[in-house]
C-alpha cells in the first residue's frame, strides 16, 4: 500500500509541475491560424442586415474611450440589440483580442484600436479580426482608410499660449528645431508612445516633399541630409533641441496654456484638450497657417472579431458608428469621422475649419510603420542631448 501511495504522490506532483510548465509556455507562444477571409458586400441590404442582427445575441465593444458606453447605449436604443461598451486601451485590446481568439472564447465582438500597424500586421493576418466596410457607405470613405477600416481620426494641433502671444510665434514646423525654440516645445516622450513613432514614419513616407519645401521656405536653401528622409532629419533636430518631454497631452496643455507665464512653450496636443480653455481657464490657440501642416490626425481602426458569435450584430454596429447618429459622442469633442459626408460639429479647437491643413495618415504605410518603430525610437534616443 505504501508503494502505491508514494507512487500516486509522485504522479500528482509530476502532473502538477508539467501543467505549470505548460501554462508557462502557453502564456507567450501564440499559435498561427488560417489565412484571412476577404470581406466584401456587392449587393448590400441594410434591412436584411438589421433583421439578421436582431436574430443574434448581444454584443460587446472594446474602445479606448469611455464614450463607447454612450455609443453602445445609443445602438441598443436604435435597434433593440443589447450592446455593452468596455473602455479598453489599445495595448490591452490587442492582448485580449489575441488571447480570446486563441482560446476560441470571443468576448469583444467589435474592436476599435488606435494602433493600426498592430491591427494590420498582427491581428488581421492571423485572422483574429476581420475587416468589413459597409458597401453603402464605402464611397464616402477615403480609399486610404479602408484596410483596415478607420472609424475616426484624432487630430492634434500645434498650439500656443494666446495670453502671452498675440499671434503664433512659429510659422514653420522647422522653426521648432531652431535656437528660438530650444527648451520651448513640449513634446510627448516618443520612446514610450507608438502614435508618435508612427507619425514620423508616415511623414517620411508620404510627407517628404512637403517637409523639404517647408525647409527651403524656412531657411532659404535646399535640405542636405545624410538621413534617409527629411522627416528623420526633423526628428533628429527636434530631439537635439531639448524639448520638454511630457507623459500626456494633458501635461502638454498645462505647459502651454497655464496662466501667468512669461515665455510659455508650444506643443502638439490633441484637439480634445481644448476643453481646458473652459474647464481650467487655460489660454490655448491653434497655430494658424503653420507650414506645412497645422497638425496631424491619428486614425483609430474598427474591426470585427473573427470568432464573433453575433457577426451580423457586429456588422450593424460598424455601420451604425459610421453614421452621424452613431459617432456623435466621439466627434463632438473634435474627432473626425472617416465618413466624409458626416457634418463636423463645432468644437473648441474649430477642427472643421482646419480639416485640410492636417497631416493625414495613409494605411498604405502601415507595414513600414510597424517595421520601423525601433528605428525611430533609436533615432530619437541617439539624437537627444
Amino acid at each position: 500500500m505504501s508503494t502505491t501511495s508514494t507512487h500516486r504522490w509522485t504522479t500528482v506532483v509530476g502532473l502538477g509541475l508539467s501543467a505549470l510548465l505548460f501554462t508557462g509556455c502557453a502564456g507567450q507562444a501564440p499559435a498561427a491560424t488560417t489565412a484571412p477571409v476577404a470581406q466584401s458586400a456587392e449587393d448590400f441590404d441594410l434591412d436584411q442586415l438589421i433583421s439578421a442582427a436582431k436574430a443574434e445575441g448581444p454584443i460587446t465593444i472594446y474602445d479606448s474611450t469611455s464614450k463607447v458606453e454612450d455609443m453602445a447605449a445609443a445602438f441598443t436604443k436604435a435597434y433593440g440589440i443589447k450592446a455593452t461598451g468596455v473602455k479598453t486601451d489599445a495595448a490591452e485590446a490587442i492582448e485580449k483580442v489575441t488571447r480570446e481568439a486563441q482560446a476560441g472564447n470571443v468576448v469583444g465582438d467589435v474592436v476599435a484600436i488606435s494602433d493600426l500597424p498592430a491591427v494590420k500586421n498582427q491581428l488581421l493576418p492571423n485572422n483574429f479580426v476581420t475587416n468589413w466596410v459597409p458597401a453603402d457607405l464605402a464611397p464616402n470613405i477615403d480609399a486610404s482608410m479602408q484596410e483596415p477600416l478607420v472609424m475616426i481620426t484624432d487630430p492634434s494641433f500645434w498650439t500656443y499660449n494666446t495670453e502671452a502671444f498675440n499671434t503664433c510665434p512659429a510659422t514653420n514646423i522647422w522653426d521648432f528645431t531652431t535656437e528660438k525654440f530650444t527648451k520651448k516645445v513640449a513634446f510627448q516622450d516618443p520612446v514610450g508612445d507608438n502614435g508618435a513613432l508612427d507619425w514620423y514614419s508616415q511623414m517620411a513616407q508620404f510627407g517628404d516633399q512637403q517637409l523639404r519645401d517647408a525647409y527651403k521656405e524656412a531657411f532659404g536653401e535646399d535640405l542636405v541630409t545624410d538621413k534617409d528622409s527629411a522627416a528623420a532629419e526633423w526628428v533628429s533636430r527636434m530631439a537635439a533641441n531639448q524639448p520638454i518631454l511630457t507623459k500626456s497631452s494633458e501635461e502638454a496643455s498645462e505647459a502651454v496654456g497655464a496662466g501667468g507665464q512669461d515665455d510659455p512653450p508650444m506643443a502638439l496636443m490633441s484637439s480634445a484638450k481644448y476643453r481646458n480653455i473652459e474647464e481650467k481657464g487655460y489660454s490655448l490657440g491653434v497655430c494658424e497657417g503653420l507650414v506645412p501642416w497645422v497638425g496631424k490626425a491619428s486614425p483609430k481602426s474598427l474591426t470585427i472579431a473573427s470568432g464573433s458569435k453575433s457577426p451580423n450584430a457586429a456588422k450593424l454596429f460598424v455601420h451604425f458608428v459610421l453614421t452621424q447618429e452613431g459617432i456623435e459622442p466621439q466627434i463632438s469633442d473634435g474627432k473626425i469621422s472617416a465618413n466624409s459626408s458626416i457634418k463636423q460639429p463645432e468644437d473648441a479647437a474649430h477642427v472643421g475649419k482646419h480639416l485640410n491643413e492636417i497631416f493625414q495618415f495613409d494605411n498604405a504605410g502601415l507595414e513600414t510603420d510597424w517595421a520601423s518603430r525601433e528605428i525611430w525610437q533609436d533615432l530619437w534616443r541617439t539624437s537627444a542631448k
Partner: protein
Amino acid sequence: MALLTPQRERSTSAKSTQDSPRYRARIILRHPATLLGVLLLLIFGYLILAPVISLLLGAIQVGFGDEAKAGASAGTLTGYYLDRVFSSPVSDIIFYTPLLNTLWVSLCSMLIALAVGVPVAWLLVRTDLPARRWFASALIVPYMLPAWTFALAWTTIFRNRSNAGQQGWMETLGWEPPNWLAYGPVPIIVIFSLHFTPFVILLVSNALKNLPGQLDEAARISGASAQQRWWRVTLPLLRPALLSAATLMFAKAIGEFGVAYVLGLPAGFQVLSTTLHQSISTQQSGIAAVIAAVMVALGGISLMVDLRFLREAQRFTTLNGKATLTQTEPLIRWRIPALAVVSLLFTISVLIPLGTLVLSTVMRVPGDFSVQNFTADYWIGHDLPTVGFSQGVLVSAATWRAVWNTVWMVGLAALCTGLLGLLVGYVVVRSPLRQLGTALRVITFMPYLVPGLAFAVAYLSLFAVPRGPIPALYGTATILILIMIADEMPFASRAGVTAMMQLGAESEEAAQSLGARFGYRLRTVILPMVRSSLASATLLPFVSGVQGLSLVIILATPGTELMTTLSMTLIDFGYSHAANAVVVMICAIALLGTWATQKLFRSNLADSLG
C-alpha cells in the same frame, strides 16, 4: 467519528526502530503538513511560478508580431532581444545607463535610510526621549503612503520653469529652484530615503527590543562607555536585522516605478523600471522581458548575499539566552536636541508631504495663498466645470464605488494572504520534508523581486483566457485579488514562519493524541493561538495593497476600479485636485486600517515583517 482516522496519523509522532527509506517516506507522506505543502506548492505554482516563467520565457522566444525583426516564427527561440538590450547601438541608452542609475540611486537611498533609521530606532527603543511611544507610531506613517504621493508633493513645491505650466510653490514665493533640486536623481533619492526610513525603524526597533540585555550590562559593568557599547556590542548584534533591512530596501528600490517616472522624465533620467515601462507601452514585450529578468536577477543576487551573511551571523546570535529588560539610556542634555531631530524627521517625512497634498485639494490655483483662492468645492461641490468628474470627491458615487472595491478586494486579499502565510509557516516549521518548506519559501518570495508592471502583464497574458477548469479572469475582481495575494506573499510567509516558530508543537500534539483530526486541530488549536500573528500578517498586505498602483493599473477595468486607479484616471483627465483628494483618502484608509488592527488585535506593523 474521529476515532478511526487518528490511527493513521499517530504513527507520525510515534518512535519506531524501523529506519528504512520506505518507512521514512511513509511518515513524511502521512504528516498533514506534507499534503498541505504539496497543495500550497500547486497553488503558488499557479499564482506565482507560472506567471514568472511565462514572463521570463518572453526574453528568449520570438514574440507576436516580431517575426520579421527576429527572422523566425513566433514562439521559436531567439537571441534577438538579448542582443538588442545588451549589445546594440542603443544598449547604453536603454540598458547600461539606466542600470547604473538604478544601482547608485538604490544604494544611496538605502544608505541614507540606514543612517537615519538606525539612530532614530535606538532613540525610540533605548532612551528616555520625550513622547517616544507616540513617535514610534507617527514615524511609521510614510510607509503607509504610496511613494508616488511624495513625488506629487515634491513637484507641487519644487517644480520650475524648465517644465513650464503652473508655477510651483517655491516659484510663487519668489525663488526658482534649480533643475537638480526640481527633477532627477536628487529628489528621487530623497523620496526613496524618506519612504524606506520607517522600514528601517520598524526592523531595527524590533531587533533592539529582542536583544539580550546581559551583554550590554556586562560591557557596562566592565566600564565601557556608551559609545564603545554601541559600536562594539549593540551594532554587531544588530547586523542580521540591518542586512535584511538593507537587501529588502535595495530590492524594492530597483522595482519602484512611479517616483522615477514623475521626477526622472523631465531631467531625462532613466532607471530600469522606466525603460521597462517604455518597452511595455510600445508593446516590445521581448525587450521588457529581458529588462525584467535583469531586475529579478539583481534582486535575487542581493538576497543571496543577505542569506550568506545571515548564515554566518546566526552562528553568533544563537549564543544568546533569553532576552531581559534593558535599561534605558538617559539622554540628559541631549534630550532636547534629540527631540528636535526626531520632530524634524516627522515634519519632513509626514507633515510636509501630507500637508502639501491636503492643501493642493483646497486651493484653486496652486501656490496662491490668498483667502479667496481656498475652496472646499473639490471635496463637496456640485456641478464643477470639470466635465469628466463634475462632483466633489466626497459626494461622487464613483469615489465611493472605488472605496468599497478597494476595501473589500484588498481586505479579502490581505486576509487570504495572511492565512496562506500562516499555512506556509506551518509547512516550513512542521513538515518532515525540509525541501518542501524551502521550495515554498523561495516561491513565495519571488514576487518581491518581480517589478509589479511586468508581473501584471504576465497575469494578463495568462488569465485573459480560460485555462483548464479556470475561466477567463480578466475584467473580474478575482484576477485583482489573485495578483494582490501573490504580490503580498513575501512578507506574509516570513511573518507566518516566525509566528509558527514561536508556537510550540505541544498543544497540537496533545489535541492529536486526543483524536482530533487535522482540520479540527487547525480550527480549534492552531488558528486561535496565532490570531494576533494572523492580524499582523494581514495588516501589511492590507496597507501596501491599498496604495499599490503598478500592479493593478493594467488589470483594473471600469467595473473593478480601485482608488489608486481612480486617482490615475483623474490625473489622465488632468483633474489634479480630485486626484490628490483621492490620494488623501487612500492614506486615510491605510491609517484607519492600521489603527483598527492595532486596537482590535494588539498587533502591529513590525510583527508583519517577520
